[in-house]
C-alpha cells in the first residue's frame, strides 16, 4: 500500500484501512454521490481511483433513484460483478463508500464491513466531517 502514515488522516481513514485489509480488496474509496469526486481513498499502488469513483457513484445514484421511483425504500448495498473482479458500494446521505475487489474476495465479509461502515459514514456526515 502507498505509505499513508505520513499523510494526514481524515475521519474516513480508519474505516478505509479496515476495508482494505480484507483479502482480495484492492481499493476502498469515499466518494461524493453528486459529483463523483474522491473524498478519501486507500488504494494499491498503481491504481487510479478518479474515473472508477465517478462511475461507481453514478451507478449507486441510479440504483437509489430507481428504487425510490419503484417505492422500494433506501438502497443498502450494491454489487457489480465482472469476470475478473467486483465493485461493492454502500451509501449514506451524500457519501458513497466504494470497494474494488478481486473475484475471490469474501463478499459476505465485505458486505458486513461495508454496512457497518455506512453507519459510521452517517455519523461522520452528521458531525459535518465530510468536508
Amino acid at each position, binding site marked *: 500500500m502507498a505509505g499513508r502514515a505520513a499523510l494526514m488522516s481524515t475521519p474516513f481513514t480508519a474505516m478505509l484501512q479496515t476495508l482494505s485489509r480484507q483479502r482480495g480488496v484492492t481499493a476502498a474509496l469515499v466518494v461524493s454521490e453528486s459529483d463523483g469526486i474522491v473524498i478519501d481513498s486507500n488504494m494499491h499502488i498503481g491504481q487510479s481511483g478518479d*474515473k*472508477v469513483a465517478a*462511475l*461507481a457513484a*453514478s*451507478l449507486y445514484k*441510479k*440504483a437509489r*433513484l*430507481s*428504487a*425510490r*421511483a*419503484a*417505492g*422500494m*425504500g*433506501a*438502497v*443498502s*448495498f*450494491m*454489487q*457489480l*460483478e*465482472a*469476470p*475478473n*473482479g*467486483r*465493485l461493492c458500494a454502500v451509501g449514506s446521505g451524500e457519501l458513497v463508500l466504494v470497494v*474494488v475487489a478481486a473475484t475471490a474476495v469474501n463478499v459476505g465479509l465485505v458486505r458486513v464491513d461495508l454496512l457497518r461502515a455506512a453507519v459510521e459514514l452517517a455519523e461522520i456526515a452528521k458531525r459535518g466531517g465530510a468536508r
Partner: protein
Amino acid sequence: MSEDVRRMSDELARDPSSRVFVPLGEALRQQGQLDVALKVTLRGLERHPHLADAHDLLARLSVDRGDMERAFDEWDMVLRLSPGHLGALKGMGFVCFHRARFAEAERYLAAAAALDARDDQVASALLHVRAAQTHATSPQAAIAESIANDSRYLFLEVLPDEAQTALLLDPAGLVLAGAYIDAEGRDVAQDVGAELSGVTEAARRATRHLAMGDWTSIVFETEVAVVAMAPSSQDGLLVLATSRATPLGLVRRLLARCAEKAQRWLDGQR
C-alpha cells in the same frame, strides 16, 4: 431403488456415454425423483446433444417441475431433430393449449393423431382443444390470448411469484417489455426505466477501466426488495425485482431465465 434403476445406473456408471441414461431418467421420473432424473438427463445430453428422446425426456421433466417455457423449448428442439416425434407433437399440443394458443395446439395434436390414430389421449386432447376454440370468444380465452401477445406480460411465465417482476429496457431507459406495479397498483416501469438509463454504459466503462472484463450483473438491496440487473443485447438492460426474502442464488437463477426469455423475444422482434 428398483432393480431396473439399479441395473441401468450400474450400466451408466460402467459406460458414461451409454444412452441408457434416457430410460434411467424416465424411470427416476416415474418414481418422482425429479432432481436426480434431471441431473442424469442433463449429463447425458452433454454427451448426446442431438438425441431427440433425451430432449423429449427433459421436456417432460420440465413440465413436472412447472417450467413450461423450458418444456416448449425442448420439444421444439425435438421436432427440429426428429420432425415426426410423437411425444414432442403431443407435448407441444399440451403446452400450446396451456397458453391458450388453440390453433397451434390443434395443429400439433392433429399431426400426432395422424401418426397414431389409436392414441386415445391424443383424440381426447383434440376434442378439448376444438371445444376450447369454439368458445374462444369467451372473456377468459380472450384475456389469455391478449396476455400472451402483450409485451408487458413477457416475464409472467418465468416469474410465477407475484412478488417478482422484470423489465427489459433499451439503452435510453425506455421500457421494451415487462411491467412494475407499485404498492398502489400503478405501473411505474417507465419511471424506473428513466432512472436506470445509462447504467449499461457506466457499468461497462467502470469494469473496463479496472480491467475486470465486461460486467455481468449488478445487484442491489433495498428495504423491501432485491434488484438484479444484467446487460441484454443491443446495449439494453434487464432488471429483475424480487422480495427481500428471496435467496441470492434464486435471484441469479431467475435473472438468467429472464435473460433467456428476453433474448428470444428480442430475436423474434427482428
